[in-house]
C-alpha cells in the first residue's frame, strides 16, 4: 500500500469538489470492508482517501409519506432493527444475507451498492484485466465457475450486491450528488453492463457519489422476499440470488418484479419472467416456464453451465417461498 492523505470532511458539498479534482486518484471510504481490501491488494492506490463517516446527513434514516430515505453511510447492521425499514421484509432479508456479522457491523448500504466486483481476475493485481484498463478478460478461457451467464461480453463479472437486486424489485431510487447538481435515478438504471462501460459498474460520473437510497412507501404494500444461494453459509457471495416483489391475490400474481443476483454484471431484472407470470395463477409449471424463458438467453462459459439450472431452480423456489410467506 502506498502512502496517502486521509481526510474526514464534515460537509457533504466538499466531496464532489474533491472527486472532481482527484478523480481516480481518490477513494471514498465508509465501512472500508471493500475499499481497504482493494487498497491492500493494490487494485486502488489512491493519493487521497475521503472518509465519509463524519458527514451527518449520510448517516441517518428518514421517512415521509412517500418514501423511506436511507443515508448512504448507514451501517448495514443498523437497518434490520429500524421500524421504517422493517416495512420491506425482503430488504431486511437481503441486508441480513450480506457477508458476515462482522462485515455488516462495518459495511454501509452505499458501500454495498458501490462495491467493486469479486471476480478474482479483477481483484488480483497480478492480472491486467479489461476492467482494470487491460486488454482482455481472463475469465473467458480461465477459471470461470463464478462468472456471469447473462449480459457478459466483453467482461464477465457478476455484480456482488445482495441489496441492489432487492432495491430494484422494490422500485427504489438512489440520490446522486455532483458538483453542479443532485439527481435521482432508479437503482435499476444505476448499473451498467460491460458492453456500455467495461471499466465501471455504475453510471456515476467522476464528481458524483451516492448520498441516499430512496425506497417508495408503496413498496411496503407488496410482498417481498430475497433468497440467496451460496456455496458456504459461513461466508460467501451469492452464486445466484433472487429478489421477488409483487402481489398475490387468490393465487393470482400481479405487479411482479423479479431481480437476479450472481448471474450478470449488473443486478438482472427478469423482465421476461415477470411477463410470463403477470396476471397468471401460481403453479410450479408456470414458475418453471417463467424461469426457463428468462434464462433462454443465457450464454454460460465453460465452467458455469450449472448456473442456468441453479438460477431456474432458485427462481422457482424464491417465488414459492414468497407466495407461502404470510
Amino acid at each position, binding site marked *: *500500500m502506498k502512502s496517502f492523505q486521509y481526510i474526514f470532511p464534515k460537509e457533504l458539498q466538499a466531496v464532489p469538489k474533491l472527486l472532481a479534482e482527484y478523480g481516480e486518484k481518490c477513494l471514498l471510504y465508509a465501512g472500508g470492508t471493500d475499499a481497504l481490501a482493494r487498497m491492500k491488494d493494490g487494485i486502488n492506490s489512491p493519493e487521497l482517501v475521503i472518509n465519509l463517516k463524519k458527514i451527518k446527513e449520510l448517516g441517518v434514516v428518514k421517512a415521509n409519506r412517500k418514501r423511506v430515505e436511507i443515508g448512504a453511510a448507514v451501517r448495514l447492521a443498523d437497518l434490520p432493527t429500524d421500524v421504517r425499514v422493517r416495512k420491506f421484509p425482503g430488504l431486511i432479508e437481503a441486508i441480513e444475507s450480506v457477508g458476515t456479522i462482522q462485515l455488516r457491523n462495518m459495511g454501509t448500504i452505499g458501500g454495498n451498492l458501490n462495491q467493486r466486483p469479486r471476480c478474482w481476475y479483477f481483484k*488480483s493485481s497480478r492480472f491486467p484485466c479489461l476492467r482494470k484498463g487491460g486488454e482482455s478478460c481472463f475469465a473467458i478461457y480461465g477459471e470461470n465457475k463464478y462468472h456471469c451467464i447473462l449480459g457478459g461480453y466483453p467482461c464477465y463479472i457478476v455484480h456482488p450486491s445482495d441489496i441492489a437486486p432487492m432495491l430494484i424489485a422494490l422500485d427504489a431510487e438512489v440520490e446522486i450528488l455532483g458538483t453542479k447538481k443532485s439527481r435521482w435515478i432508479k437503482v435499476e438504471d444505476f448499473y451498467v453492463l460491460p458492453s456500455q462501460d467495461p471499466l465501471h459498474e455504475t453510471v456515476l460520473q467522476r464528481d458524483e457519489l451516492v448520498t441516499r437510497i430512496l425506497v417508495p412507501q408503496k413498496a411496503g404494500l407488496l410482498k417481498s422476499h430475497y433468497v440467496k444461494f451460496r456455496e458456504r453459509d459461513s*461466508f460467501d457471495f451469492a452464486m445466484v440470488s433472487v429478489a421477488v416483489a409483487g402481489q398475490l391475490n387468490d393465487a393470482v400474481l400481479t405487479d411482479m418484479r423479479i431481480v437476479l443476483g450472481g448471474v450478470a454484471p449488473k443486478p438482472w431484472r427478469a423482465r421476461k419472467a415477470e411477463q410470463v407470470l403477470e396476471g397468471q395463477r401460481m403453479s410450479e409449471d408456470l414458475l418453471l416456464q417463467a424461469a426457463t424463458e428468462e434464462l433462454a438467453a443465457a450464454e454460460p462459459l465453460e465452467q458455469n453451465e450449472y448456473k442456468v439450472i441453479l438460477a431456474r431452480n432458485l427462481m422457482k423456489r424464491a417465488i414459492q417461498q414468497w407466495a407461502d410467506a404470510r
Partner: protein
Amino acid sequence: MAGWKSPEQMTYVGKEVTRVDGAEKVSGRAKYTHDVYFPRMLYARILRSPHPHAQVISVDTTRAEALTGVKAVLGKLRDEVNYVGDEVAAVAAVTEFKAAEALSLIKVEYKVLPFVVRESEAMRDSAARVFSGREKNVGDWEEEHEGDVERGFAEAEVIIERTFHMNVQVHTPFETHGCVAKWEGDELYMWDSTQGVHGTRSGLAQHLQMPENKIHIYTHHMGGGFGSKFGPKSYNAVCAQLARIANVPVKLLLDREEELLATGNRPSSFQTIKIGARKDGTLTAFQLESYGSGGVGGGAGVPAPYIYYFPNWSVRHRDVYINAGAAAPMRAPGHPQAAFAMDSIMDELAAALGMDPLDLRLKNDRNSTRQQEYVIGAEKIGWTNRHKSRVGHKVRGFGMGAGQWGGGGERSTKAMVNIYADGSVDVRIGTQDIGVGTRTIVAAVAAEELELDLADIKPKIGESDFPWAPASGGSVTAPSVTPAVKRAAEKAKNKLKSIVAEKMGVAEDAVSYAGKIFSISGRAENISWQEACRFLEGSSISELETWGEGLSSWGTAGTQFAEVEVDIETGRVRLVKMVAVQDCGLVVNTLTARNQVNGAMIGEIGYALYENRLLDVETGIMPNADLENYKIPGALEMPDFDVTFFDQHERGVIGLGEPPAIPGMGAIANAVADAIGVRITELPITPDKVLMAIEKAKEGKA
C-alpha cells in the same frame, strides 16, 4: 521400569484434562511467533516471481537499497524460478509497508520461459518443461504387484473400472509461516512457527554453515502446521541472513497469499482403478494406474490397494511435475487420496453386487480392530435403519470409509525432569505444541508418575536447547514424548526416594512413595513430598531419560460414517452427522484426543466439499489465493460430530494426528452418491458438480 497403570487407576492420563495453557491462549497472553517483538526490530518481505517459469537474468536492488528505512537486502536468491511465488529477493526495513515498497523498487530482468500447470498436459512429450534442462516432466514409474492380476480378473464375476480425481488441498494453518531472527554475537536466536525445533536448528546450521550449539529455536505457541512446517524452510535462512546484515532483530511473516502459493500442499491424484470380485463379494483383483502432482515437488503416490484384502493386485504410479508450489507432507500423506478412491469404488462394487457396502467391507477387511469398529460406527450412524429420506427437494444419504496409520514413537526422544528443593517440578523436552495439546500431556504424564497435582508441574517445551524430541508430524509426538517423560519422572522420583533413604538411614527398598507421601517400612513416621524435597538443600534433582519400550505402540485402524443432506435443486451438500470410531491405544487425554479427531473431520469436510487450489491455465497464477476464494468450511458448515475411541489401552500410547484425517472423504462421497444416485468422482463435491451430475443423469434416463 513400570508400564502404564490401567486407566481407572490413573488420575490424569486417560482422563479429560483441560489445556494447561488454555487461559493463556484465550486471554491473548500466549506469545506466538507473530507476537514476538523487539525494539528496533525490522520487518522483512520476500520478492516472489510473478512468472510460473523464468530465468532470472539479473536482480538490481540499487533503488531499494537507497530507500530510506531499508536496512538489508538480499538479491538474486535463484537463477531459475519455477512457479508463481518462487523466491527472488528479500529486504528488511523499518516497517512492513516500507519493505513492500522496497520490493517494488527491485528491478528484476526475467527471461520468461514456457510453463505448464495441467497434469494431463505436462505428461505429454510436447509439453513445456517445468525445469529447464530436464528431459521430461514425469518421474519414473513406480510399480508393485502381488499374485496374478490377470488370473484375479479372470476369476471375477463382476469387474468395475472408474477414474477418480482429487484436488490439491493447501494446509492453511491460521498462523502463517514466519519467524523472528535475532543475533547476539555469533549466536542465532530464532522464534519460528515450526513443527520441529530440533530439525530447524540442525538444518539451519548446515545452511548457514555454523555449529548447532550456536542456534536456538523457540516455538512456545503455534497456530497449526498440518505438515507444512517441517523446518527449516528457505524463509528461515533469509530472515537469519537479513538480521545478520542489519545487525538488529528481523521479523519475517508470510502473508496469506504466500502461504497459499509457496508453503506446501497436498498433491493432486488421478487414479484409474479396476476392481474384480465374485458374486458373493470376495475380492479377487485390483489394478491401479495413477499419477498426480506435487507441483515442483513430488510425493503424489498413494498406498494401494488400500486396506481391503486382494489376493492379486498391481499398482503403478508416476509423479508429474507442473509449475506450481511444491507439495509438503500433509496429514497422512497419500492415505486420504488412496482411501477416497478405494472406498468410492468399493461402494460402486457393492451397488453392482447388490450388497450392503458395510457387508462388503466386513467380508474383505482382515483387520480385527476395524471389524469391530465398523459395527460400532454403523450403530452410531443408524446404518441398518437408514433409509433414503426425502423431504421436498432435500435427500439424505449415508456412506462410510476406513483408514490405517502407523504412529509409533521415536526411540531417541529424551526428557529431563527437575525436582527443586521447594517441591516444585519442571519437565523439559524439546517437543512443540503445534496446537494439539502436547504441553498438557507432558504435564499430565509427569503429574501422574510423580503423583502430584497438575499445577505442581511446569511443562517446558518448544525450545531446541531442551532434550531432543522429534518433529511433530506423522502422529509420532504422543508415543515419543509420553514414554520419555514418564521414564524421566520415574527416574527423578527414584532419585528422590534414594535421597530420603539416605537421610533416614534405611535401605532404598525400604522407602515407598504414594500420594505425595514417602513411607518407611517398619516405621510409623511419614515424610511428605515437600519435606523430602527440602533434603535437597537448595540443590535439585535433574534426571534425563530416553524413550523406552513397552509404553507405546504402532498401528491404528479407524472408520468414519457420514450422513449428508443434498439439496437437489441447488446441488448443495450439507453434512448432518459424522461418526468416527478410532483406536489409538491408550488415550492420553480424552479431551484433546476428541479435539484432534474433530479437527481432522473438519479438514476432511473442507477437502471433500470446499477446498480447491486452482491454477489459471493461461498465466499459471493461482486465482483463488485468499481465504475468500480458497474456501475452508466455517462454523455453519459443521455437522454433529460423534467420536468413539476404540479402547486398546493395553497397547500403550499411539499417535492420533493422521488417522482420523483419512476415512472421511470416501464416507462423504459415498453418502452423496447414496443420496442422489449418481457418483461424483472428483473432489471437492461442489454444487456445480452435483447439479450437473443430476442433470446428466436425468438426460440419460429421458
